[in-house]
């Protein structure tokens, strides 16, 4: 993982911005019923990247997408596309296409007519349209369905038609509004991979909206985690998962244990944190801000394991519950402070006392504990 050349990140930084939003504000309603959907958002989405807006429902991710598409106009702020201000441009003048959550296929047209619609509206000659439609349908493996009506297709096929239709005019940006939400699990997993490879093949910037953190981690180049109309953190999936800067981000992405504690001393980027039950733990400090005092300590369950015989344990707790996960066991421990600790114990549980009430020592993997900003 660390074999990635150091200059790769610099190259990524140098890539041009496809979308630049500045001080974007969107409110709905007036007076007392006024709701702020987006609260002063700044975001740069780079050329060619798979960018995901991740957050719980009502966090403003879909509103941001609709502002980029032009279906809504912002209350304040600007949106630029490749350096051109498109804030007030109507949707049909923006080189941006959308894959809608419910696909929004035109029911009175065939699959081929749906896919060719954008090019027809752009006034392309019909020979070019036919060729492009054929190419798009082969890209999503639906050549045989060209003359079908859209209601004769399965959910997964409709999804792919929607994708082909949005990609056919070769937009600068493809917006995807939770396009996989209506598919069953297996199909969703397949489509995740297909979407990712489509993005590679076409070289188009994808902006993907989802509330599913696993989906976001699987597909994205970068993720923006949103809550209450604000972006809390932007970074690669690894950044977001391993180095959450915000307690909400840590909690929302994956499973995590969060404890209250106090920073006793710091040395470089290491801090000695005293937990509520009196034990001290070594933890990595966030890049920004090294203030002493009370803090939140975060440890992923997979960074923990049960201490072997004679091994020094960092934490100790009483076993309350064992959940079998297939590849691993989740051990739920109660610490002396009353806080719960989940340990994902991979591998064998032989030699470990798994009876309820057993006292177990826990080892934290190096770098596994982090102080949240």
């Amino acid at each position, binding site marked *: 993982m660390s074999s990635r050349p150091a200059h790769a990140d610099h190259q990524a930084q140098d890539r041009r911005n496809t979308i630049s939003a500045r001080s974007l504000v969107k409110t709905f309603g007036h007076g007392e019923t006024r709701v702020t959907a987006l609260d002063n958002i700044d975001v740069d989405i780079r050329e060619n990247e798979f960018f995901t807006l991740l957050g719980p429902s009502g966090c403003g991710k879909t509103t941001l997408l609709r502002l980029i*598409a*032009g*279906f809504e106009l912002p209350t304040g702020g600007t949106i630029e596309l490749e350096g051109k201000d498109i804030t007030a441009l*109507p*949707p*049909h*003048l923006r080189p*941006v*296409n*959308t894959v*809608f959550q*419910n696909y*929004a296929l*035109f*029911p*009175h047209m065939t699959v081929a007519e749906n896919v060719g*619609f*954008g090019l027809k*509206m*752009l006034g392309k000659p019909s020979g070019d349209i036919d060729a492009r439609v054929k190419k798009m349908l082969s890209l999503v493996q639906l050549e045989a369905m060209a003359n079908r*009506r859209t209601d004769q297709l399965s959910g997964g096929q409709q999804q792919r038609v929607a994708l082909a*239709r*949005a990609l056919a*005019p070769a937009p600068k940006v493809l917006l995807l509004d939770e396009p996989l939400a209506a598919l069953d699990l297996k199909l969703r997993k397949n489509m995740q991979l297909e979407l990712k490879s489509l993005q590679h093949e076409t070289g188009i910037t994808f902006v993907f909206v989802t509330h599913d953190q696993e989906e976001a981690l699987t597909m994205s180049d970068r993720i923006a985690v949103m809550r209450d109309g604000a972006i809390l953190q932007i970074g690669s999936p690894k950044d977001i998962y391993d180095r959450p800067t915000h307690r909400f981000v840590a909690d929302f992405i994956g499973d995590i244990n969060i404890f209250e504690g106090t920073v006793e001393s710091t040395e470089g980027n290491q801090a000695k944190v005293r937990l509520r039950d009196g034990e001290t733990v070594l933890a990595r400090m966030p890049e920004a801000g090294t203030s002493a005092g009370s803090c939140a300590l975060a440890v992923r369950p997979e960074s923990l394991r049960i201490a072997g015989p004679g091994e020094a344990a960092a934490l100790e707790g009483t076993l309350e519950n064992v959940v079998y996960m297939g590849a691993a066991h989740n051990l739920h421990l109660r610490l002396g402070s009353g806080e719960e600790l989940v340990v994902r114990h991979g591998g064998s549980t032989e030699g470990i006392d798994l009876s309820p009430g057993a006292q177990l020592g826990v080892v934290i993997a190096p770098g596994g504990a982090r102080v949240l900003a």
Partner: protein
Amino acid sequence: MAETSVPTPRRAPRARDLKAMPGFKTIGWACIFALYMPLAVLIIFSFNDNRSVVKWTEFSLRWYEAALENDGIRNAAWVSVKVAAVATIFSTIAATMAALATTRTAAFRGQGLAYGIINQPLMIPEIVTAISTLSLFSLVKQATGVTGIGYLMAAHTAFCIPFAFMPIRARLEDMTLTLEQAGADLYATPWQSFRYITLPLLMPGILAGAMLAFVVSLDDVIITLMVAGPGETTLPIFILGALRRGITPEINAVSTVLVAVSVILVIALFLVQGRMKK
């Protein structure tokens, strides 16, 4: 403790379906009888060879022949079709625009009021509309000196609008805005979006509205009676006039043709809509 066992049902459980209620069939047939028996009598006696409309003698088409040869009936039928066709076209266009304006625009102040104003003519007694239309047209005729069938067509267009409006608006409300947004997203200008997405999807509603307008215009009596000038006798007015001389099988024959026209329209619409939905 008292007996707590579940009582065994005496009868097999039945789904709680309205059709299973006692008397459902009887009431259903009674309604159908009340609705269609008069029509059945009219249609049957239009084929009666006898002049009587109460005593059956023999099957014959002679009254249809007689009606066909009757210049009065032929002229009246032609006037009716002309007026209904013009009224249908213009009222459907107006109703479509009104329906679009009340569903496909950003919410505006007085939207509910606009909706009410469009539908209000349905609630005003027709005789009032007829008299007021007559007064207005008299004023206009006096001021301009222009006469002709245009007045009758204008009156029919006006009272057909709310009838055409209802099914069109209902259809528009069923259509999600997402499809038009998808159109705009795919570079369709507002006009192209209307032409290629809204209009084709709205077509069943427009056809239903047009059909309703046509039928309403075709059988209007009261307003036509007030507004129609000499030589502008429509079929219902002609029938009404003929009735003063007593019911004849000839009138039955004409009425049967009117029924047939509306049945054919309904079937045609049903087929067209069925094909569009598929």
